[in-house]
């Protein structure tokens, strides 16, 4: 299981801090590297996915703030030129309007791919997502549904984002029955997962780790492929402790795993991929093997999604557990600017927790 590392630089406090991007060039069967696979970064992979989505379905639309010139992260470059302004268009600055409008489009049978410029800005749309998108099929008795709706938003720390460009709001959405929440960890995963989300008959919120937009580079097949939702993936086999994470945090966890390896601790690393509904069986099977689990995410620890995983695992594997479920997460403060390195669940914090759990 060869893992390719791309060297990132680590700079000091207050300056741009890079983490090694996590590559999924593993031997997993999905997205088999047959034929053409080019080495591209995350935003290009997402761009490819969007191109394919619009190509294969002529009732698909991409809209959001600044998408027509390519978007502030370049995820939507070329779409407007290729598919026209009637299908790829800018919206005014109104997140609530954007998502509500998307729900309407989806209800009429279209595929609406809405972009929220930063996940931090998704809150005005929260009402529409929770009260409308999630409940549309339910309350109309299956007469209508907004399954064609996919909301894409860049989330997560970026090194210098501060309060409003770094938040991880996945926990809020995981509490809503009726929508799906998906987070990819790398370019190849992103393309496959995004296509699955777009074609899934349920409304999906797709969070993209913005730190990895340029940093994560991987071989991504050029053809149309989909990765299954609600299936977690074991990306590193181990026997002493199970680590569960998603998105950009996995690369940090992987570094911690490597370090722990030197101390003789064999770590199993699982990428949840879909947070809602999440793959309990895979995680449970892994915990039954190792007896210990550690969850890590950037969002604040209290009420974060790690709490749900922890509670579920304890319910299912109580007698098997050798140590309490560890959560290494962001602190319970608003996402800070200068203090970001202290706030984040860093490799060292994870390593400490691994050791504490293993030596419990």
């Amino acid at each position: 299981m060869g893992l390719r590392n791309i060297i990132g630089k680590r700079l000091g406090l207050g300056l741009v801090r890079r983490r090694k991007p996590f590559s999924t060039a593993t031997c997993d069967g999905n997205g088999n590297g047959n034929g053409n696979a080019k080495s591209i970064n995350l935003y290009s992979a997402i761009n490819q996915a969007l191109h394919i989505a619009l190509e294969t379905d002529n009732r698909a639309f991409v809209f959001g703030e600044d998408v027509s010139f390519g978007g502030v992260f370049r995820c939507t470059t070329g779409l407007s030129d290729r598919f026209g302004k009637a299908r790829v268009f800018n919206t005014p600055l109104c997140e609530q309007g954007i998502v509500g409008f998307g729900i309407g489009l989806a209800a009429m049978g279209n595929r609406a791919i809405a972009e929220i410029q930063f996940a931090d800005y998704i809150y005005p749309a929260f009402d529409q997502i929770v009260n409308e998108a999630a409940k549309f099929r339910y309350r109309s008795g299956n007469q209508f549904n907004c399954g064609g709706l996919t909301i894409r938003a860049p989330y997560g720390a970026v090194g210098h984002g501060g309060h409003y460009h770094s938040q991880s709001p996945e926990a809020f959405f995981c509490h809503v029955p009726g929508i799906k929440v998906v987070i990819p960890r790398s370019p190849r995963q992103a393309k496959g997962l995004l296509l699955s989300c777009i074609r899934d008959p349920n409304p999906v919120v797709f969070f993209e780790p913005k730190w990895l937009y340029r940093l994560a580079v991987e071989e991504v097949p050029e053809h149309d492929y989909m990765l299954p939702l609600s299936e977690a993936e074991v990306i590193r086999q181990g026997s002493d402790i199970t680590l569960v994470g998603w998105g950009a945090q996995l690369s940090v966890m992987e570094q911690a795993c490597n370090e722990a390896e030197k101390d003789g601790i064999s770590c199993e690393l699982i990428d949840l991929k879909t947070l809602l509904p999440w793959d309990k069986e895979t995680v449970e099977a892994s915990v039954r093997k190792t007896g210990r689990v550690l969850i890590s995410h950037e969002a604040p620890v209290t009420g974060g999604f790690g709490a749900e995983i922890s509670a579920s695992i304890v319910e299912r594997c109580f007698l098997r557990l050798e140590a309490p479920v560890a959560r290494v997460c962001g602190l319970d403060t608003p996402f800070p600017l200068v203090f970001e390195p202290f706030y984040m669940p860093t490799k060292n914090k994870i390593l400490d927790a691994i050791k504490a759990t293993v030596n419990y």
Partner: protein
Amino acid sequence: MSLSHHHLNTNILPTLSATIPTPFPLVFSAPIVSFLSFIFYSPLSLPSSPPIFSPFPSSLPTRKKMATAFSPSKFAAQPFPLNTTSQNNPLTIPTTASPFLGSTRKLIRLSSSSNLNIRRRSGTVVAVSDVVKENKSKSTLNLLITKEEGLELYEDMVLGRAFEDMCAQMYYRGKMFGFVHLYNGQEAISTGFIKLLKQQDSVVSTYRDHVHALSKGVSARAVMSELFGKTTGCCRGQGGSMHMFSREHNVLGGFAFIGEGIPVATGAAFTSKYKREVLKEADCDHVTLAFFGDGTCNNGQFFECLNMAALWKLPIVFVVENNLWAIGMSHLRATSDPQIYKKGPAFGMPGVHVNGMDVLKVREVAKEAIGRARRGEGPTLVECETYRFRGHSLADPDELRDPAEKAHYAARDPITALKKYLIENSLASEADLKAIDKKIDEVVEEAVEFADESPVPPRSQLLENVFADPKGFGIGPDGQYRCEDPKFTEGTAQV
């Protein structure tokens, strides 16, 4: 004009509007130079607007006047053509007699009516101030500002410009980080409005807030330190570029999220009105200014607040800094009716458009709008047409804007224009202005030095101020801050 002659019961909120029944809410008591009177006397034909709904029956004959008085002041031409498909066409820029219409001397020499006709035909945007001057019966050589005021305005604008340029330098040197949005080109609005405020008046801004904070009185040192993330910054380094607050100067924040500040400003304005009318602090006439951009005018929060402010007649001025671009979205392509000032009358408040590159015009309009608010006449929506010379933020390559458009506005640089005005009208000499330039350079350099030398905040600050009671959170059972607890990283030296 006081708003109420009736005894106000202490039952506040929704009843507030109901308990301000004045027999003359719409009376025209404005002095002759008020822009309301200008509107009435203006020979320009006004677009029709629906009459304002007033809950108060008024038998005054002036009621009909007020309907027109509340309609948009004038608009002879769009700044840019609305046929947005012609993005590649050369811009039809209305020709003006001079790029800077603040020079009253020129106006008075020309015969008023013919000049006005010429202007109308060429489709110039006619400013408030010059038409007012035209209609004044007595010919006067009164300039719009005195020498002291002129120098104060000049200094403030130069401070804003020099500071922002220094920010760019520091950013590219890596001393400051994060998302930084610079205000170059829009200084006239900040200076024009904020320099008319008192210390107790509040300002609410957006992420492009450095210059608003500076104009309001926050020291350049504090702002620069905040940008560098140091403890001596105005928010102790917590917020950075987009979150400038100052309790002392009543800066209620920069807001990273567009439109989020407007309801906050509305609430602040309500407090001031409450203090005056319910708590009877008679001299409390604090005004709140809310600054925001053209993109925000398509956001729900904006409309909600226009409604509330007009409903409750709050002492607030909504200042739209329309720089035509929201990152990469052209205002003309994102808005069904790009004339933002028209949205004011729809809610029952006057909407005014002003050339935001001309500090004197902005100041005149600001005087009236702020005066209205101070007198308790309610909110105003002021749309300032302006331009940002740099990209949206320092990370924006700014490729989308037409160079011709940029050049057009660069020629209307507010600082150069004011300089020209001051010199032409002998209010100041080149030497005076150069002295100010030099002084500001020193201030900005000193601010950078100060920021460099200031300490970085201690780790314990990370957990402070999440809640009011520090012991309620962030402190472990042993009374220590959790981050000082050795278990925080289990003994490893690195974070």
